[in-house]
């Protein structure tokens, strides 16, 4: 018996070494941690339960039968993050380059099935050279199996991808279908075709970093939701994100003790809106002053800065925030910001996370660049996302809410539950000057008259009270009391139940 137990130990030891010390050292030399080290950082100490430690591939082509390492290039199992269950797979670059084989894929699918059945998020740590070429179509089939699981799991459990090394070719489409993608700066990249193929086909000369590094995907393509300095920081921040997320779509978002006053008054918010309506201000100050302990987890912070998305807590419970940012492009809605916010709103709605919308929007961005690229359909995504959402929604208009953008930004008409406005709010079809020029076209040649008309329009509409008279605004509130008002509104909505007509699924304009 002792010998047998010893053999188990030996085999485990062998599996834990992955591709051997030399490859581990090489991984470290690149500034990367090994698959198992990453799991240690992601999960609570000692909580990891590994499965399929001894899985090995069954390929016999190209001499592969002589190289059958335990684990087959991926470590899978489950553990806890601050005591809450998550499933994890971590590709092991030291074993066959982390390449995906049929059995490698099988391991990933196994824990994804468990995650869906048992209701816990899946976190994938990606570091793989791609499909295992020796296996041919078996490897491709394996990828497709993972894709299919990603699709089935979407909206059932949160799926988080962390790109911690190469992720190229078909491999990118698994992370692409998860809820969040994070990257590690300088050591990770993602692209469909690499720099060599790009050069052959399009004659473009580009480095892997330029083509698909963290900066590209967080700032240009918006494929990634965030980037971190190194493996340690990335995994710590994923833990922080998981603290905000419900485990599955049958559960409410998590609640934890909070050290803040629900009725905290912030007198300084009374002066947040500058006297000059054309001066910007930082909407993040309002977010920080409304949220518990000023804690804000921003999603896609480097992309489409004219809209802000992310998570806060109110009374200890997660709330998703969507806010126009007057500091960037005056907070205008455009293709990028609409897409960014729409996806975020849909994530929140999937997982019963209430949504707080902070509005200061001058309208949609005009121009051929926008129209040619389909701002109509992209803008519609955000409209659609808000309109289909059934989670508690509270909206605060701080300043401008002009035109169609007013409707889009979680207005009363899009089923928001509680709509507040600050006294500084201006709810109108457009800015006063533009309106005057259209209504009083005859006076266009007379600047004095136009000014008088504009002033008259402003007096009439540059305030929240016309909308409040119609009940489109539930209450005009003092800026300083925003936290208390919003927190109480969400408290009132805790048992909100709303449903949409039965359908197979909707047809959001993609």
């Amino acid at each position, binding site marked *: 018996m002792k010998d047998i137990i010893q053999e188990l130990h030996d085999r485990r030891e062998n599996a834990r070494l992955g591709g051997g010390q030399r490859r581990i050292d090489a991984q*470290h030399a690149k*500034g990367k*941690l090994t698959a198992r*080290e990453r799991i*240690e*950082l992601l999960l*609570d*100490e000692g*909580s990891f339960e590994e499965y399929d430690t001894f899985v090995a591939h069954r390929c016999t082509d190209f001499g592969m039968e002589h190289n059958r390492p335990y684990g087959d290039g991926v470590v899978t199992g489950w553990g*806890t993050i*601050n*005591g*809450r*269950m998550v499933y994890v797979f971590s590709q092991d670059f030291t074993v066959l380059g982390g390449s995906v084989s049929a059995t490698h894929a099988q391991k990933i699918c196994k824990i994804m099935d468990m995650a869906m059945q048992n209701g816990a998020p899946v976190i994938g740590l990606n570091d793989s050279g791609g499909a295992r070429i020796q296996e041919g179509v078996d490897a491709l089939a394996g990828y497709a199996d993972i894709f299919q699981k990603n699709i089935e799991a979407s909206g059932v459990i949160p799926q988080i991808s962390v790109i911690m090394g190469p992720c190229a070719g078909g491999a990118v489409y698994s992370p692409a279908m998860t809820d969040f993608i994070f990257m590690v*700066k*300088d050591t990770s990249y993602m692209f469909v075709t690499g720099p060599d193929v790009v050069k052959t086909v399009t004659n473009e000369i580009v480095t892997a970093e330029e083509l698909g590094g963290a900066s590209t995907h967080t700032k240009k393509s918006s494929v990634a939701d965030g980037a*971190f*300095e*190194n*493996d*340690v*920081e990335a995994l*710590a*921040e994923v833990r*922080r994100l998981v*603290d905000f997320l*419900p*485990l599955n779509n049958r*559960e*409410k978002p*998590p*609640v*934890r*003790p*909070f*050290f*803040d006053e629900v009725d905290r008054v912030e*007198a*300084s*918010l*009374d*002066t*947040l809106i500058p*006297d000059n309506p054309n001066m*910007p*201000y*930082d909407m993040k*100050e309002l977010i920080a002053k409304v949220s*518990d*302990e*000023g*804690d804000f987890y921003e999603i896609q912070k480097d992309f489409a800065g004219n809209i802000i998305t992310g998570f806060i807590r109110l009374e200890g419970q997660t709330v998703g925030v969507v806010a126009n940012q007057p*500091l*960037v*492009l005056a907070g205008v809605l455009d293709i990028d910001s609409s897409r960014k916010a729409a996806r975020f709103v849909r994530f929140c709605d999937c997982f019963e996370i209430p949504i707080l919308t902070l509005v200061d929007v001058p309208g949609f961005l005009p121009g051929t660049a926008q129209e040619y690229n389909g701002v109509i359909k992209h803008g519609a995504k955000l409209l659609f996302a808000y309109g289909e959402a059934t989670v508690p929604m509270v909206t605060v208009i701080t300043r401008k809410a002009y035109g169609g953008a007013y409707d889009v930004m979680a207005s009363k008409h899009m089923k928001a539950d509680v709509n507040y406005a600050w006294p500084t709010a201006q709810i109108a079809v457009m800015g006063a000057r533009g309106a005057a020029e259209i209504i009083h076209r005859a006076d266009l040649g007379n600047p004095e008259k136009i000014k008088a008309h504009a002033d008259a329009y402003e007096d009439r509409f540059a305030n929240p009270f016309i909308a409040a008279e119609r009940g489109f605004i539930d209450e005009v509130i003092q800026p300083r009391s925003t936290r208390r008002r919003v927190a109480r509104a969400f408290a009132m909505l805790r048992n909100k139940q709303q449903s949409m007509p039965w359908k197979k699924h909707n047809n959001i304009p993609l």
Partner: protein
Amino acid sequence: MFEKILIANRGEIACRVIKTARKMGLKTVAVYSDADKHALHVEMADEAVHIGPPQANQSYIVIDRIMEAIAKSGAQAVHPGYGFLSENAKFAEALDKAGVAFIGPPKGAIEAMGDKITSKKIAQEAGVSTVPGYMGLINDADEAVRISQQVGYPVMIKASAGGGGKGMRIAWNDRDCREGFQSSKNEAANSFGDDRIFIEKFVTQPRHIEIQVLCDAHGNGIYLNERECSIQRRNQKVVEEAPSPFLDAATRKAMGEQSVALAKAVGYTSAGTVEFIVDGDRNFYFLEMNTRLQVEHPVTELITGVDLVEQMIRVASGEPLSISQDDVKIDGWAIENRLYAEDPYRNFLPSIGRLTRYRPPAEGPLGDGIVRNDTGVYEGGEISMYYDPMIAKLCTWAPTRAQAIEVMRNALDSFEVEGIGHNLPFVAAVMDHPKFIAGEMTTAFIAEEYPDGFDGVTLEDAHLRRVAAAAAAMNRVAEIRRTRVTGTLGNHERRVGSDWVVSLQASEFTVKIAADHGGSTVRFEDGAEIRVEGAWTPGMSLARMTVDGESLVLKVDKITQGFRLRTRGADLKVNIRSPRQAELARLMPEKLPPDTSRLLLCPMPGLIVKIDVEEGQEVQEGQALCTVEAMKMENILRAEKTGVVAKINAGPGDSLAVDDVIMEFE
């Protein structure tokens, strides 16, 4: 006594005058420009009168505007504060004509002391010690050299109308003297339209020490001891204290008596300040007389118990002084730090904008002393580009100088200012500087001790350990809270360990925390133990901890795996990790900050108005590269060195954040 007074000023000094007026039962009238519509002084006053656009030369220093405000409000007297119209004889005259009292000296005294040469002559005649030199006007370089030889090198060549270092040269020999004479003359002509030059002895190891005087209209005059104001940056006082750690009783008495004599010689009434330069041997020389309330007057009030503003008002209303020279004592020690919206890490560049957070320490008792904070701003208010970027004057008083410094350290540590750059870390560093602690400073203190500017404070090991212990204890609280979340797997909750590795400022400490009801005991690897107590909970921006019985105040921001902690002028990134996390973190490559020498970075948040160059263009040092508009100010960014523009990343209309890359050079 008056019933209603107008304060022809803004900011902290207007607020400070209103406080005393209110205490005396007087009604107050504030004046304000467009930029000050929501200012604190407007809110504090009983009435407020709008006097024009933001620019001071169209509002606060326009005599007619102020006279209109007086007429409108019916104020019987005007306190001018400092700056603006406070030393303007024409203003005093206009008030006189209108039959309104000026809470300040008579017009003649302002005029007499307003000119450097005249004032020095009067001082000499009144028996005040003056710097040896030639009082008359100097016509040419030969005459300048002859006079310099008589006075003895080194000498200072100065413009009569000068100020702020303009038109000033130091000469150590005849050659310096010839050159300096000509350049001072040119500079004076250009800057002041007045090229009169005089020469005086250059004082070595100079200290700036000034005497507060107070005179009434009945021939009484007293001095209220001195203020040491040697710590200056570019002639701008930063730290002041009273008394001076350098003066002895005899020197104090001599300086005080000469100051009163000078005041009497010009028929001075009200509060005034006689500035002296004092050399290493306690020889003192008259510099000038400021015929107004000084910025730094609170330190005098704190050690004498005299409310100078109250005395000014009483004197102006004709009352005789109720204090005699014998009543004036020195009680304890007072220090003032001027908090400016100037970013010490960016060469003290003014930083304007919104105060997203402004929480000064509570006024009143703190530790062994008391705190006084004279301020004109509030959280959510604006530091405007139009005026002096002063945020507050933070003063502390205690029985001894060492105690006053210690109270100041605590007060600075708990002073929260966010949203703009400010010099708080810098003055905190000065409070811990050995030369300041020893009281050994000259007017060259900042230039000599911070020759390359200020780049933060490095804490010594013992202090670092105390911060590390506090951080470990705070982190434990935060980590335990993270485990108290809903949805945990019953019986398999995370247990927060007691072993941690704290890394900060290139040091790493392995510690073990034992927590009990009263706090935590943090044990270091070498066996040393530090006791940490304090009620910090996550989200609190200020941690008031007691570490080994001593107070430690930290400004706290959350970062990944730890905190950003600020204390004593140090700005620390503190990581607290489990031993295993720390082991793996050590494997992470050190990432050096990107080399920005080949980049043009946006120095402030703003809008690109114009790009003056093209890609591939060669630019010369000093050539304009682009214009950034920030707060309606157009700032021209210039090439720091000759080079070729490789890439331009921004165009007109782009709105940029601080440190965004505008263009790259080859």
